[in-house]
Structure formats: C-alpha cells, structure tokens
C-alpha cells in the first residue's frame, strides 16, 4: 500500500460517515441509470421504470441524463468518488477505454446464460460491442453513416444517380461544384470520415492493432486527391472543419450535392431544409457499402452493488416492447430485430423518406469500419485527425502529414 492508497482509504472512510442520503440508499436496492443526452424521452423512461419496479418491488431507480460532451467528465468523477451509476448508456468507442480499464462489467456470462436474449439483436451491431472477446454492452439504439444526396442538384449536373465507386463520387462532386455550390460533405467527428479511406482499401492499424498501417503511397495519393478536390470546390471545406451543425446546416441549405452522415442527420436536415421531400432527397449507401457506426449501448459498472439487478434492468429497457416504443417515438433503430421491424413499419406510411434513411441502417451491417475496439481510441483519434486535416486542407503535403501522423500514432500505441 503506497502513500496514495493510504490517503484514499482514509478519505473514503471519512467519506462514508458524511455520505449524502442518496449514496447511503445505494446500499439498498437502488439502481442508478445514466443516459446519454436523451432527456426528451423522460415520459418513456418513466413508464419503463414503473413497470420494472412493479416486477421488482423494493427497487428504486435513479435516472440521470447528461449531454454527450459532459457525460465522460461526469462519469469519471463519479468513478473516482466510487459512486458510478450502475447502468450507463455510452456512445461511440468510449466504452472500450472504460472496459479496458476495468470500469465496466464483463457481460459475457450473462449473455451465455441467456442465448434467447442475445438472439434478439442484430449480430453485427452486437459484435461491435466486443472487446478482448468479451461483451460489454447491449445495444440501446444504433446508427451508421450513409450517403444523402440532393436529387435536384444531381439532375442539374446531368448525373443519373448516386455514385457507386469512390472515383465516381469525386467525379460527381466535381460536376456539381460550381460557384456557391459544392459537391460533397462528410461529418468528421469520431471516425465518421473513415469510409472514404476504407473504400480505397486503407487501414488505420495493422490487424493486431499494434502498429499504424495507414502510411502508404495509396493513402498519400488519396489524401492528395481529397485535397485537390477540396481546393477545387468539389468537396466543401466544412467537411474538414465543421462539427455537427455546420455540415448538416450547409447540406440543408441545398447547395451541397452529397452528405455522408449518419441517420440522425436526417431529422436535423429536414428541420432546416424546406426543400426536402422524397423527390429531392435521396438516401443510399456510400460507395462500397462502407459505413461507420455511432452506436449507443448499455453497460453495467463494475462497481455496481447489484449487478444482477442492473443487468435485469438493461434487459428490460432493451426488450422488444420498450425498444419498439423507442424506435417508434424517436425514429431510431435499436438493433433489436423485432422492434426495428415494427418501428420501420410505423414510419413507412408517415414519412417514406425517413423509412428509406432508416432502411440503409439495416443493410450491409457487415461492412462497418472505424469502430475498432481500441482502448486508447480517443488518443489515437487526436493523434491522427489533425494531420489528416492538415493534408486535406492543403496546409501540409500529404506524405509529410501521413508521416507525422504515423509518428504521433506510434507514440500513443507505445505509451499504452
């Protein structure tokens, strides 16, 4: 026991005496659930919890919701203080790091006990929650990227349909990029731009995730082409500088030919673009059918006092009944096969375009990329992205940028 541990134990001992009521209550049957920016579904959650409480009397449920950028800060502070929520909804690849560091409970034994439960879910989405051959999350709601295209602009440029290959994509973009108009946009947070790399056969890391694999002549050529297209106005610069509002907003303004984004973008774009209807907006797979997911899953904290109960709650919240409700109300897919069928059915008549968008999410789920289970995903992203950005914005020569990125990524990989 080193000095810090002594200090911590002492503080913790003192802390138990002064614990606020809600913490002391945790030793009873209290389950706390932390969700990721879905406070709008308060009514739904209330119903779900009420039903769960009816089935499990004497259980109390505390529901917390934090928005995306704040959730990690909140969860980690709670971890340090030893008061982590029992059930947590995590987006993207954040869970891998927490799983690797032992914050999350390995759910594999629970899955093995209940094969019927596992079978309810799309296996491809399910397998994206595996790290080190262990299951950590249950899908809550899922999304992956697709290609939106402005049919009006395609017609004006004399293009017959959406591109089938990367070359076609660049050529179509070039054909539409004139004056104020540009041909192509992509979201760039997380690894949402990676399908562009993947469709050209470029990998981020070697299969064992030990070394960078992206510094190849092919990658340099690709970055070069992207930079040239960007400079020529075929690709909108916002693709490499904007975050969420900017690219979606630009596409919604009707002056961009294609947008590579995930299904959630549809509702944003539709809310802002008056021009949008099935005749003017198309939704299809990106060339090569490659896509990057941004999934939400429920995990259980290892520090949970009632892991059985916590998992039971997860099962409850992802059951066909409640997943269907979520899918219908929020127009999302849940990876729960039956629920998604029902959800899609209800969308079909009401909003055919949303139906088309959501339909793409269930196709080619075997061709997902940019979802590597890397324990230091955030650090690798930070090391890679700025150099990539430099290259495509023409601030750095592609070869130099890739070499610099390789050095930075190697350093991250070596550190862990």
């Amino acid at each position: 026991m080193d000095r810090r541990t002594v200090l911590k134990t002492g503080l913790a001992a003192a802390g138990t005496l002064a614990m606020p009521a809600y913490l002391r209550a945790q030793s009873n049957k209290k389950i706390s659930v932390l969700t990721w920016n879905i406070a709008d579904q308060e009514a739904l959650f209330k119903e779900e919890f009420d039903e769960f409480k009816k089935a499990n009397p004497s259980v109390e449920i505390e529901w917390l919701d934090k928005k995306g950028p704040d959730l990690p800060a909140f969860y980690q502070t709670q971890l340090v203080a030893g008061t982590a929520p029992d059930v947590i909804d995590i987006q993207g690849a954040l869970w891998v790091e927490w799983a690797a560091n032992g914050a999350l409970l390995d759910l594999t034994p629970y899955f093995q006990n209940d094969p019927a439960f596992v079978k309810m879910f799309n296996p491809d989405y399910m397998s994206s929650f595996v790290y080190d051959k262990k299951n950590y999350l249950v899908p809550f709601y899922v999304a992956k990227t697709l290609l939106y295209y402005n049919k009006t602009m395609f017609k004006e440029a004399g293009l017959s349909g959406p591109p089938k290959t990367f070359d076609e994509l660049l050529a179509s973009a070039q054909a539409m990029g004139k004056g104020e108009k540009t041909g192509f946009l992509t979201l760039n947070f997380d690894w949402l731009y990676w399908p562009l790399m993947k469709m050209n056969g470029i990998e981020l890391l070697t299969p064992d995730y030990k070394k960078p694999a992206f510094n190849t002549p092919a990658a340099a050529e690709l970055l070069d082409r992207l930079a040239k297209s960007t400079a020529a106005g075929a690709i909108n610069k916002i693709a490499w500088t904007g975050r969420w509002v900017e690219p979606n907003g630009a596409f919604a303004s009707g002056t961009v030919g294609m947008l590579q984004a995930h299904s959630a973008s549809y509702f944003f774009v539709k809310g802002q673009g008056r021009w949008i209807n099935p005749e003017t907006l198309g939704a299809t797979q990106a060339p090569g059918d490659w896509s990057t997911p941004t999934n939400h899953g429920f995990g259980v904290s290892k520090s949970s006092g009632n892991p059985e109960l916590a998992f039971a709650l997860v099962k409850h919240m992802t059951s066909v009944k409640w997943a269907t409700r979520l899918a219908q109300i929020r127009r999302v897919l849940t990876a729960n096969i039956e629920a998604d069928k029902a959800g899609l059915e209800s969308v079909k008549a009401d909003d055919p375009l949303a139906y088309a968008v959501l339909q793409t999410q269930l196709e080619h789920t075997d061709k997902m990329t940019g979802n590597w289970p890397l324990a230091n995903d955030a650090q690798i992203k930070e090391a890679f992205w700025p150099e990539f950005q430099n290259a495509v914005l023409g601030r750095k020569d592609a070869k130099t940028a890739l070499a610099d990125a390789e050095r930075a990524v190697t350093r991250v990989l070596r550190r862990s």
Partner: protein
Amino acid sequence: MSVTAIDTADVRPRFTRRRSTRRAILIWSFLAPSLLIFLLYRILPLGWNLLLSFEAWSPLKPAVFIGFDNYQEMFWDDDVFWQALWNTLGIIASAPLGIAIALGLALLVNSDIRGRDVYRTLIFLSYPLMTVAVAIIWRWMFDERVGLINFVARSLHLADQPIPFLNSFTWALPCVIAANIWQMLGFYMIIILTGLQTIPGNLYEAAEIDGANSFRRFLRITLPLLRPSLFLCFVIGMLNSVTSFDLIYVMTNGGPGHATEILVTYIYKLAFNQTRFDYAAAITVVFFMLLLAVTWAANRLSGGNVGAVEHD
C-alpha cells in the same frame, strides 16, 4: 502568536499587549473562513495536481511514480501543448488591446457630459452575461452563412465571399479574442474609471498652468497614476480570458484543428476525453507557473507593489 503580538505591541504602543493578542486572533479568525475555502478549493487541488503530475494515474489505474515523464512528453513530444501555449499567450497579449480601448472609453465617460451614467451602464452591460450564452451569440454572429458580421461585410463589399470565421485557421483565434474583449470591455472600463477618480484634480490644474497640453497631461499625470488600475485590469482580465473555458468550449471547442486550443481546454480534453489525468495535471502545473510568471512580470512593469491592491 504571542511573539507576533509583541511585534505589534511595539509598533502600536497605544494598545496593551493583551489587547494586541486578541486583535491578532481576531484578524486571523476574520481571515480564516476565506482562507479555508481557498485551501479546500484551490490549494489542495493544486497540490493534488502537483503530485499527480509525477505519476501515471487514471480513475481506475493505481498510481505509479514516473518522475518527469509527463513533463518530458509535454515539452519535447507534444505539438498540441505548444500550440495551446502559444494561443494562450496570444490571448494574454490581447488583454492590453482591450485595456487600451477601455482606457479610451473611460476617459470619454469620465468627461463632464450629459448621460454619462447611461453610457457607463450600457458599456458595462456585456459583462454580467453568462459566458455560455455569450459564446452562443457570438458563434452565430460569426456564422458563415447567416452571421451578421458576414452580412455587414458583404453589404459593404469588404468581402466578396462569406468568410467562415470560426472554421478558418487564420480567423478563429482573433474571433474568439474579439468576443472575449467584447465581454470584458465594460469591466476594464469600470476599473480604470475607479482609478481615474482617485487622481486629484489639482494636479491637472497645476499642469495646465505650466502650459502642458492635454496629451502631455495624459502622458505625465494620468498614465503614471493609473498604473495600479491598469495592472489590476490586466491581471483580472488576463486570468478571466485565459481561464474562460466556456467561451471556447462552446464557440469552437478548440478547433479547427487546434487553432483555438488554449491550455484550459486542452487540460479538460486530456483529462476527461482522453482519460489522461496525470498528463493533464502536469500541464496544469506548468500553466499555473506561467500565470504566476506573467503576473509577476506585469507587476514589475507597473512598478507597483502588488499594484492597486497595495497602494495604501
């Protein structure tokens, strides 16, 4: 305590020794609550950061002593740190610009004109605003497609193409600085105004009799006597801007690239997005040193003994 009491008693023979002891206790007990708060929420956390900066630690990994590794990485391997450092220094360097504008304004509203209280109030009005809201407002003013600034620039034919201010590597930092100055301007002005009012009017009269013109009077009387206020402005303004996390967090989140990354945002991202609390702690320590050094230098430059704070 008794020793100190004797000292005080020597200086102030009017009071008995007993009374001085009581006074010293009283003074310290008056200070105690504030000191306790600072101890709990400033000093202990700083100590925690200092310890952590020599360790490898995350909320789940036990701490391991690693010596200066974090510092080594920071200074030799981390380009982002250097960029954030330069940006931070850039923001610090922009404080005098805001202060200069505020000085001009203070001189104007200090003149004997009608409605000067209204002017003072209006100019100060931006300071009480919630920074998150200020950031939202300015993010939108600078917007490429619908921002007011682009609209004005294009209407006046200053720009043919809309400028993507916050998405541009060259413009993003100046824009953030502009928003920051906009918010701080009123605050600077009030502090300077306070300083201006302490300058005795007869000094000016004497100078006028000597035939000094208004510019010379400003240079010879106003500026030197304002030094403590200017120093105070600089320190508060600098600290406020450099630690104004909310503004950058909402306006650009450090982007594009790391063009508007400052040390505070970088520390936050490292700790909470990348789970590198240890490394973030090392940067915190360096950041603290930097602020200390800048304040010390500013204090020397203003020639003050802790400036306005200590001009009795």
